[in-house]
């Protein structure tokens, strides 16, 4: 019954539930001073001894202090915000400007001139862009769904495992997560290799003839998805596991007492309670998967043909291989816009549901 978080649960758990960031539900500003005047003994510049005057003085001092703390807060925050603004928001704005301008590249640099929507028209007419868009969307949906299911299953197994076994399994799961994506891409490229790859030779002995994993369209897409799922499912599993361990025990006990079998208890009681954790894990993964670049760059180079060419890869190649900065910026900006819309939509749905749960209980 205690509020102590279970063993592996972050010690960072504060009294704040994190939902307070929702706009319009901001935390009440914290005055750093208690309502009762603190014992003045230690303070060198504490006002006079008459109780009445001292109290009035204190309240005016508090608002002064509050303003001072607010100013201090900005002083603490602006260096971090400034660098983020300068290196992320400003370039994004520039990207958008570039995608809407005529870009002329010359020997001494390049110039933006005149407003145009040509780059976007070009995009919409381009078979290659439409294919990359479709591929990225379907790939994101496919891999994230698979990861969600597998990750939840793994988390359930680990939860039952308990003890030292769970600790070791968590450690093992963290390894693919912490690996350089380029490394895992090279590793899978080697295993998929048509001549000496271990998976090729395994498929040979199982099916009687070697599968060319990266040689044709569909197998290449699936092979890339498998490599991706191997690397990122552990992330989902760990988040779900942490969510599982934070569930209140009494709810599950109550379900058991009410005669719910394990299956019903999972679908009806635990899964709904897990939803916030799942939703955030999925949000992180969707955004990552949508910007996928490293894996196709190394594993397939976008091929065969343009089968595994993601939006990010297409944008990069148009910009840095063809040096078409205008259309490339249009690809990049539209990718960013899609991600932003998806993100906002998702957060909206997510917040609505959290609200529902809070009022429902």
């Amino acid at each position: 019954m205690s509020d102590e978080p279970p063993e592996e649960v972050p010690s960072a758990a504060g009294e704040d539930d994190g939902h307070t960031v929702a706009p319009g539900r901001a935390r009440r500003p914290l005055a750093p001073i208690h309502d009762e005047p603190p014992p003045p003994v230690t303070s060198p510049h504490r006002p006079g001894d008459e109780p009445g005057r001292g109290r009035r003085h204190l309240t005016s001092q508090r608002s002064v202090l509050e303003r001072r703390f607010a100013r201090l807060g900005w002083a603490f925050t602006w260096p971090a915000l400034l660098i983020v603004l300068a290196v992320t928001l400003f370039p994004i704005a520039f990207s958008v400007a570039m995608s809407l301008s005529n870009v002329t590249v010359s020997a001494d640099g390049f110039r933006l001139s005149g407003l145009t929507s040509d780059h976007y028209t070009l995009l919409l007419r381009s078979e290659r862009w439409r294919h990359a868009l479709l591929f990225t969307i379907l790939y994101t949906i496919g891999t994230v769904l698979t990861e969600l299911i597998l990750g939840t299953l793994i988390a359930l197994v680990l939860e039952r495992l308990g003890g030292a076994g769970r600790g070791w399994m968590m450690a093992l799961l963290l390894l693919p997560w912490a690996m350089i994506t380029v490394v895992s891409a090279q590793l899978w490229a080697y295993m998929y290799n048509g001549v000496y790859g271990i998976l090729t030779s395994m498929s040979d002995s199982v099916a009687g003839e070697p599968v060319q994993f990266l040689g044709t369209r569909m197998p290449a897409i699936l092979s890339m998805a498998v490599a991706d799922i191997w690397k990122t499912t552990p992330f989902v599993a760990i988040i779900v596991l942490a969510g599982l361990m934070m569930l209140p025990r009494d709810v599950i006990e109550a379900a058991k007492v009410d005669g719910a079998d394990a299956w019903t208890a999972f679908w009806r009681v635990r899964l709904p309670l897990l939803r916030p954790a799942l939703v955030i894990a999925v949000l992180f993964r969707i955004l990552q998967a949508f910007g996928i670049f490293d894996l196709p760059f190394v594993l397939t180079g976008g091929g065969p043909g343009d089968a595994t060419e993601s939006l990010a890869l297409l944008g990069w190649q148009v910009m840095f291989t063809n040096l078409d900065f205008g259309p490339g910026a249009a690809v990049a900006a539209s990718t960013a816009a899609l991600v932003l819309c998806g993100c906002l939509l998702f957060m909206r749905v997510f917040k609505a549901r959290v609200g529902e749960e809070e009022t429902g209980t």
Partner: protein
Amino acid sequence: MNRIRLTWTHAAALVIAAFVAAPLYWMAVSSLKGVDEIGANPPTLWPEKITFDNYKQAFVDNNFGTYLLNSVLVSVVATAIVLSLSAFAGYALARLPLRGKAPIMVALLMISLFPTIALAAPLFLLMRDIGWLNSYQGLILVYTALNVPFAVWILRNFFLGIPKEMEEVAWVDGASPVRTVWSVILPQARPGMFTAAIFTFTACWTEFLIGLTLNTADRFRTMPVGLALFGSQFTIPYGTIFAAAMVSVLPIALLVLVFRRAVVSGLTAGAVKG
């Protein structure tokens, strides 16, 4: 009944472990194989003759030593800067009466998830204009900016969980703000700082797209860029690549294994709590 269920759980755990570990095993084993054996068909499950030639190839005959040092330098410096900026910002956003905290936090979260491809071209042009292409400071600046948002999130959540009494005493005693944060609050926030450090370091260590865009000169390549661009179109020397990859994976693997509790708490601080 109970016994059977237990063994099923164990069997499932073993299967999961095997799937996760098999590719890692394959990389480790392949890095120890000779040139002929690594291209053998069918492949050998254990090297017939263990050799460290690949490691010599990677670090003596090729430039992976330089790439490794570049990665260490960029990641360590960026992590240090990220931590010092985020500690103060995270503290302010957790405790001080700022207006517009909520929108700032949401904006930071969204920025930390933004696809970096949208930044590649403008950053390339910007860095070219100020002459920071193929430099350390350019990459450090970008990595700092990319990782500040998430670090601020982790630290802010952590600060919220620290009792307020001590710092209030410090304020009342008239300690300067920077001093209060430095000597009263940071010591209590050490686990949170640690988590933020591991996350930032891992992110810098594995970042590829920006590194590929800004630092292509051989002398300034980081490990991921070096690993991706190694070899020609027709022959990919996997032995050398895996030897270098093993060396790049080991430090981060040790870090993550030893401090796995901090990592898990960070994953959940960013995800479950976010």
